């Protein structure tokens, strides 16, 4: 241990005195700090913007004049997905998935307005976030600093000198790992600091922040141990560099994209347009609430009349048209729910396939940890869609309830021909303020922690594999000192 410490100190002295290494470390530190600061600022601005949009939309809805309630059903409203306190660390799918939903009667719209669509095409190259710097750029710098740590000693003959001084191959590998680990720690500090500050601002997020910090720490350590082992195993520095760059390309670039592509092929998802057409076709089969001769609604009418022991709708104690609207909405909503469950099932299957493939790339596992921990993963998006749909249904049914209970059936039936009747079907504007506001309930921190456990285990397995490789490389190094 003492000798390993000495070797680490000498290696760090080399890095400090070699300007290239020093510039690389300072650049990474700056990049991490800038990423943490800009991402946090961007997310804070986006958070405020969405909050302002939500407030403005709600105010516009409530400021509508006295109207027929079904006009309000079609006027609709917008909901904006709020941003979690840790999203600044890893925006996850937020820039790609829609963040805004238009809610209206009879329809379930897709989430729209994603950062990638709204901004320049440069966004497709990835936003500069602490997660991106740590998961993609930091390993590259560690490779450049560490690939020759041991091949250099062998090439210039100092390995023999070290071994003849009583140092073991294990001391050398451990010492080099400590040195490269120190650089990894420097790369981690800005990200950890950013997570700490985010957790400080929202103490309930401390556990999730710690989990993300742990995941990133494990990921960097996997690279550190792997790079040192590769340097011990390679015959030459050039061989080590080429192998490590190849591994980096696969782990950080090819595997994440390839895994997503494979998942979409193994669990294909219909396009939104196809799904909409299918839903419309099924809706037509179920019945049309606007068509008085529709068999489903004719049966509904007969059932309602029988329930109230009357023979015509005019004798009902409420406006039958409102009841039809409510029944039609319940019918379509059940269909929307069915298709949402199917969509969510396929998307979750895709997500599970990608998670399973993290056995091929620790980058997939660490992304899973940071997105789940930050609440910017698929689950949070699905939760937003589910809660938005529940809110849409509640809002529309509230308005349909006003339509049924506050309007006279005769006036409602005559409103398109009789201006006075039309005026009587308008209800007071204060009813709009009684529509409950959309309050997104994000996944609880405990649930997010639980979701991050499996990828943390995968990262631990990766680290275990790298340690086994390091032990093996020690044996190889002992035999290759010459």
């Amino acid at each position, binding site marked *: 241990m003492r*000798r390993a410490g*000495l*070797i680490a100190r*000498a290696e760090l*002295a*080399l890095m400090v*005195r*070699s300007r290239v290494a020093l510039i690389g470390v300072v650049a990474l530190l700056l990049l991490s700090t800038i990423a943490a600061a800009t991402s946090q600022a961007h997310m804070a601005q986006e958070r405020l913007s969405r909050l302002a949009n939500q407030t403005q939309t709600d105010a516009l809805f409530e400021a509508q004049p006295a109207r027929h309630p079904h006009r309000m059903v079609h006027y609709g409203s917008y909901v904006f997905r709020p941003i979690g306190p840790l999203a600044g660390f890893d925006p996850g799918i937020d820039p790609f998935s829609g963040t805004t939903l238009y809610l209206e009667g009879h329809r379930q719209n897709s989430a729209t307005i994603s950062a990638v669509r709204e901004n320049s095409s440069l966004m497709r190259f990835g936003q500069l976030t602490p997660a991106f710097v740590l998961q993609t750029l930091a390993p590259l710098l560690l490779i450049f600093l560490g690939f020759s740590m041991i091949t250099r000693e062998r090439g*210039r*003959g*100092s390995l*023999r*000198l*070290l*071994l*003849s*001084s*009583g*140092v073991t191959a294990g001391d050398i590998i451990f010492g080099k790992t400590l040195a490269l680990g120190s650089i990894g720690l420097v790369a981690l500090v800005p990200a950890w600091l950013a997570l700490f500050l985010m957790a400080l601002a929202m103490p309930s997020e401390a556990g999730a922040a710690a989990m993300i910090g742990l995941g990133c720490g494990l990921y960097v350590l996997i690279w550190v141990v792997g790079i040192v082992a590769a340097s011990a195993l390679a015959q030459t520095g050039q061989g080590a560099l080429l192998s490590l760059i190849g591994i980096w390309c696969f782990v950080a670039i090819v595997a994440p994209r390839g895994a997503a592509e494979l998942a979409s092929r193994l669990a294909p998802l219909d396009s939104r347009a196809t799904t909409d057409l299918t839903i419309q076709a099924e809706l037509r089969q179920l019945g049309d609430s606007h068509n008085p001769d529709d068999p489903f609604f004719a049966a509904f009418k007969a059932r309602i009349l029988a329930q109230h022991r009357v023979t015509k709708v005019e004798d009902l104690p409420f406006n039958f048209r409102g009841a039809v609207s409510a029944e039609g909405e319940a019918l379509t909503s059940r269909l929307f729910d069915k298709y949402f469950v199917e969509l969510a099932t396929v998307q979750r299957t895709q997500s599970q396939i990608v998670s399973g493939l993290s056995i091929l790339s620790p980058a997939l596992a660490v992304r899973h940890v940071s997105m789940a921990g930050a609440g910017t993963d698929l689950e949070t998006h699905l939760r937003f869609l589910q809660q938005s749909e529940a809110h849409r249904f509640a809002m529309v049914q509230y308005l349909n309830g006003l339509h049924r209970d506050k309007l006279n059936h005769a006036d409602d039936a005559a409103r398109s021909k009789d201006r006075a009747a039309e005026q009587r079907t308008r209800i007071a504007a204060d009813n709009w303020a009684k529509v409950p506001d959309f309050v997104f309930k994000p996944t609880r921190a405990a649930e997010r922690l639980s979701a991050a456990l499996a990828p943390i285990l995968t990262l631990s397995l990766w680290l275990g594999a790298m340690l086994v490789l390091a032990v093996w490389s020690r044996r190889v190094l002992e035999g290759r*000192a*010459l």
Partner: protein
Amino acid sequence: MGRQGLSLNELVVMRGGRSVLDGLTLSVPAGHIYALLGGNGAGKSTALFATLGLLPVMSGQVLVDGKDPAEEPDAVRAAIAYLSETVALYEHLTARENVDYFLSLANQSRTNAEIVEAFAQVRLDPTAQDQRLSAFSKGMRQKTAIALALLRKTPVLLLDEPTTGLDPQATQDFHALLLDLKASDVAILMVTHDLLGAVDVADTIGLIIDGKLASQWQAQSTLPRFDLQALYGAFTQARAGNTPV
């Protein structure tokens, strides 16, 4: 008990499936310089690596100050100072830092006065001691490495082609340092191509051919110390691939 020097007895070492040392036997007593000569691939460096315990020995025995590297590798390495042809000290460290570093790795500590004295003994300019080795000539690096060997106070010194690339003055200085070490009872085994250099300092010159000691000459107490003509003849024959008679 005094220092016991170094001995290789019937040493057999295989590398890449072939026998590189094939029953090599030689002995370097304390306070003795042994120059091992031979052509490329004769097994000179392999003998050093086997002594350091960096290569497994198939049969035979190495004894370093009475210890077998197969049984006591740490004790053997602690008893040896090794200088490679390239003087593989660290260029980014100063001469002083290199010495401190390798002494620490060997679990040894020396006072500042001892270190200053060692540098003075190897005649390294005091202003150079705090300069990085990247600015040093090969001769200055050799001096730093010898200062390290002096400070380690090991009973055995192994040298691999130590004078390659040195100018005549630096070679002469280096030989003077070896004689100083010899006077401190250090057993020195030097593998070299430099016949004239070996004649200058060695007490024994051995000629290795195909992993075996083909001939061995002892220095005379009177000048000339060696029969240079006989040595040159044997050496050129060995380089031509013929075993000298």
